[in-house]
């Protein structure tokens, strides 16, 4: 009896290290940040319990948070979600039996993802420079006046969207490519025998089979997109510029970092973090509902 009881404990013992580490480095900080968000918690010194005061302040009084969320949502559409409309067709093309050197293309498209974000942002800042940037030089060749990309609220969003699409298209393409390779070839042969063209073939077979992966990839984009920080931080000139002209590049995560490390308001920053978390949850729920209504969704 003793032996069997000991055996019964063994699996728990084996998984204990993970749960112990997760409790210390995962659960505890999460719980602690909830606690912090209820206090007027500065860099140091005494803290004062203010209940939901930080949440109320962020949502009603703060002059930056709501516009930062709006900026983030715009970039989510033009930067993080738009890339799926590029990545999926790209994956289909690369997966085509007519394309040679698949490994090369996979590597080439994936390279931006593993390139340092700071380096990427600096290079794009040069490309978008008003006076000496490559993009304005190209526009100038067509007689178009230079655009102040990084000194204009719309220009900043265009520049940021370009960076985000360039950097993450490869990542999504690789996810879709892996999923495409798991679709049985016989299905395509069957619809080809039924006389379906290329578009019809992908609408009838590819998309429904990929829908769970689309949900997964879009979820990752929503989570990542709502936490964009480095790209706007570097591209718009750091904390002191607060996202550039019209605070157009001030994202929710950027403002969180600003509030915590520049303003030294750790309680308020924790409240911002939790509000962002709730927004991410809601957006993923929308993603779930949308993909469930698509062919192949909800399987």
């Amino acid at each position: 009896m003793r032996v069997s009881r000991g055996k019964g404990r063994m699996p728990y013992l084996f998984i204990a290290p993970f749960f112990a580490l997760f409790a210390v480095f995962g659960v505890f900080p999460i719980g602690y940040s909830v606690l912090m968000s209820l206090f007027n918690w500065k860099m140091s010194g005494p803290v004062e319990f203010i209940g939901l005061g930080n949440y109320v302040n962020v949502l009603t009084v703060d002059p930056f948070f709501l516009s930062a969320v709006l900026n983030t949502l715009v970039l989510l559409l033009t930067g993080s979600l738009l890339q799926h409309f590029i990545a999926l067709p790209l994956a289909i093309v690369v997966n085509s039996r007519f394309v040679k050197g698949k490994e090369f293309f996979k590597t080439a498209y994936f390279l931006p993802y593993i390139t340092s974000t700071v380096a990427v942002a600096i290079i794009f800042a040069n490309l978008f420079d008003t006076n000496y940037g490559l993009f304005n030089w190209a526009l100038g060749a067509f007689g178009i006046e230079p655009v102040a990309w990084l000194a204009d609220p719309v220009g900043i969003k265009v520049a940021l969207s370009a960076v985000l699409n360039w950097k993450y298209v490869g990542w999504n393409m690789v996810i879709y490519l892996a999923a495409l390779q798991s679709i049985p070839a016989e299905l395509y042969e069957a619809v080809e025998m039924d006389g379906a063209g290329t578009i019809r073939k992908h609408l009838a077979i590819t998309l429904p089979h990929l829908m769970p992966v689309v949900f997964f990839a879009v979820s990752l984009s929503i989570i990542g997109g709502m936490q964009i920080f480095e790209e706007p931080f570097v591209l718009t000139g750091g904390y002191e510029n607060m996202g550039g002209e019209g605070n157009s590049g001030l994202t929710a995560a950027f403002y969180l970092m600003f509030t915590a490390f520049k303003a030294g308001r750790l309680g308020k920053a924790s409240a911002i973090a939790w509000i962002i978390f709730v927004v991410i949850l809601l957006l993923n729920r929308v993603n779930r509902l949308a993909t469930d209504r698509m062919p192949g969704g909800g399987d």
Partner: protein
Amino acid sequence: MKRAIAAFALAIALALPLVAQSFDPRKKYEVTFGVYGDLERAYREVLSGPDFKSKYPNITFKFQTADMNGHHNRLATIIAAGEAANDIEAVEIRFISNLVESGGLTDLGAKPFNGRVVGKDLVKFAMSNATTTRGKLVAMPVDIAPAVLFYRKDLADAAKVNLDSLKSWDEYIEAGKKLTLDRDGDGKKDQFAITHPGDVGVIPLNGGNGGWFEDGKPLEPKQKFLDVLDLVLKIRRAGIDADLGAWTPAWTQALKDGKVATMPLGSWFGGALKTWIAPESKGKWRVAYLPGKLYAAVGGTYLAIPAKVSAARKAAAWEVIKYLATSPVAQLAVFRSIDAFPALTTVYSDKVMDEGVEYFGGQKVRKIYADVALHIPESPVSEYDNVVLSIWMRAVSTVVFGKKSPEVLYEEARKKILATVE
């Protein structure tokens, strides 16, 4: 009774590390030092030199270096978390306001440090910037950056303008119009007076170091702040700026190529020009007072001891800070190494200050730096200064476009500040 004595002895033993301890010259210390940028190189040179070694043979060092933002983010995080930090932490002037009221740094003005007595010869404004509203001195200034006007003498001579004694910013703008030229005759200006109007967005406001509040009200007195927004707008409207973002490759290239004639900045910029921006322009650059003999600082370093450091380690850390801040040998060595201008006023009469600097055509630029340093006014810092600075800089950037008036942008900035600090 025995129990009571034992409990008392235990309490004393436990409390001992919390009580201030004095530096023991016979004991070996390894002082940990958190720094950013070039400071490690400069401090290593000084602290391994014969002067320091003869005074403190028992102190060795372990440095932790990061880029400026990374260093201060780490410092903010560990202070907020109440974790152990390095024994000494360097703090850049832009970050001092964040930390000054944080309570996470040791009061160096109190016993046994007596920082105010030790630092009696350090520049007053820098000591003031490191002092909390309750009078605690939380860091010691080691280097400062007096703001001056760097200018290209050859371009000024060609345009027949004298930038050495500009009486006002209006005079500067008038001179700037003569410095802005189409040198190659292609119909487009290719030489400008200044890189961007935003370059003067905080210099007239103590260089952005303190002075943002008056009697608890932000951006007061109003006229002082409106004047700055007006100045920025006037520079743009005069068409004398190159519209270059600071520290971009185009910005450095323009300075290197002599396409920008002036640059109002801290003294450290002279080192940057000399070493990597335009080393080939030796003899062409000069230094002048800011228009109207405006006195401000743009940059500077402080050294602090986090509160969580044990008393024994604080004693050693304080010896090192004292040495770096108040030893003429150390102050001049760091100055020679990385052009960090001394915070110690007694070295301003050293012969090195009277030497001509080859890069600036033999001009005695250090005399100007020293004079500016001695006249920079004290301005109180607040824990909100970083937020205010960011909001202000947005107003400065926006006024350039001329779509909103300085008055409107001033009001917007003031409202945002009030809402943010509430």
